[in-house]
């Protein structure tokens, strides 16, 4: 047993970079998937809509912890492959991000009036160009505040990676807490670090909402 020192604080801060890595992985793989889901959900083809809806309902009907456990413990045993914590957590966070961002972006796309699609079609644009040049810019404006808000959920969600042994901020907190026997102090500091990382995003989302929706 030792007392909490500056070195412990620095180890917590350096674990924050792994939280950042997880967020980047989730966004990097999840965002394109989310766009695909949003387009599928707004598609005219029933089969596409239903596939995307089923995926969303399942992922959003299961705890993130469940996704993590399933990909970390379940899949490797079933498929007979080794999976590093980073890969397992990366897959779970990607699926989670895709489903929530997909819904947010679908909301943005549907909020654009249907006449806009028709007007763009009248100009002779292809379906992709209608989306790319007419719908997407307007949908982006409306979806931006909740997208930033979701980033906060995502940062908080990465804390669950600690449960499968991935050493990010929350896990580093557990390790330091176990070494110093000062759980209250350590977890308060960990909470403060998360708070410092999330609050600016929350405030940004709020100001975006006031600005972008107020202008309409």
């Amino acid at each position, binding site marked *: 047993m030792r007392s909490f020192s500056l070195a412990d604080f620095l180890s917590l801060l350096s674990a924050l970079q792994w939280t950042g890595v997880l967020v980047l992985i989730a966004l990097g793989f999840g965002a394109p998937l989310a766009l695909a889901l949003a387009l599928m959900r707004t598609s005219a083809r029933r089969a596409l809509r239903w596939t995307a809806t089923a995926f969303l309902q399942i992922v959003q009907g299961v705890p993130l912890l469940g996704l993590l456990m399933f990909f970390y413990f*379940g899949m490797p045993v079933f498929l007979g492959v080794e999976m590093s914590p980073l890969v397992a957590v990366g897959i779970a966070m990607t699926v989670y991000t895709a489903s929530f961002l997909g819904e947010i972006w679908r909301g943005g796309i549907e909020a654009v009036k249907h006449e806009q699609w028709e007007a763009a079609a009248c100009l002779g644009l292809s379906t992709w160009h209608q989306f790319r040049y007419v719908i997407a810019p307007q949908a982006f404006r409306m979806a931006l505040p909740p997208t930033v808000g979701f980033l*906060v959920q995502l940062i908080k969600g990465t804390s669950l990676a600690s*449960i499968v042994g991935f050493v990010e901020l929350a896990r580093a907190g557990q390790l330091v807490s176990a070494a110093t026997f000062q759980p209250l102090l350590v977890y308060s500091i960990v909470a403060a670090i998360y708070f410092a990382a*999330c609050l600016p995003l*929350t405030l940004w989302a709020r100001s975006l909402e006031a600005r972008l929706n107020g202008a309409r």
Partner: protein
Amino acid sequence: MQTLNFQQLLRYQDQLIDGTLHTLLLTLVAAVIGTAIGVAGAAAVRSGPRPVRWAIRGYVELIRNTPSLIQLFVVFFVLPGFGLRMGAFEAAAIALGLYFGAYCTEIVRAGLDAIPGSQVEAGQCLGLTRWQVFRHVVLPPALRSVYPAFTSQFVLLLLGTSLASQISAEELFHTGGFIETRTYRSFEVYAVICGIYFALVMSFKLLFAAVGRLAFRWPVRR
């Protein structure tokens, strides 16, 4: 690749049912605590003295910008420090109640803010008492506008109770870990656990949609 074997899980039927009931109980207790905090918090933020308003704002932002897992740990380690001896389940109920309360405060506040002041004035002009204005003018539309956000937050709370397993509260996810260590059927165990959560969430979603249609004619059609 290994073959699926759900047979072994059948022996743990009782534990699974028990875990599911504990998850439901934890969700309901946290929802009751949180809703009470939410209503009181929203009322205080709208019309309380300034220090109270600031304190509630601080609480809401603190909860909304930190992971629930860390909140659970903090509550779990704080309570014994104040001489409060309690089990993991009680600590989880308090932590999740505080978590739900913060989101509820925002939801209720937004619902009350959505009612134009002119409607309240119109009610007063008709000679209604303060209570009558609240009961007949403010409450019905507020409940209606709060309902969708409240129900989806409730579903998130239900899913969030899975974190309580990390402080050894014996809910559904904890049961999953228990069965896994005895059977080594990780894939089947987590598939079944996730399946139960999914079934619970779907049942609540259908129930909420039915109640919404009956009570509020929601979703609102224009």
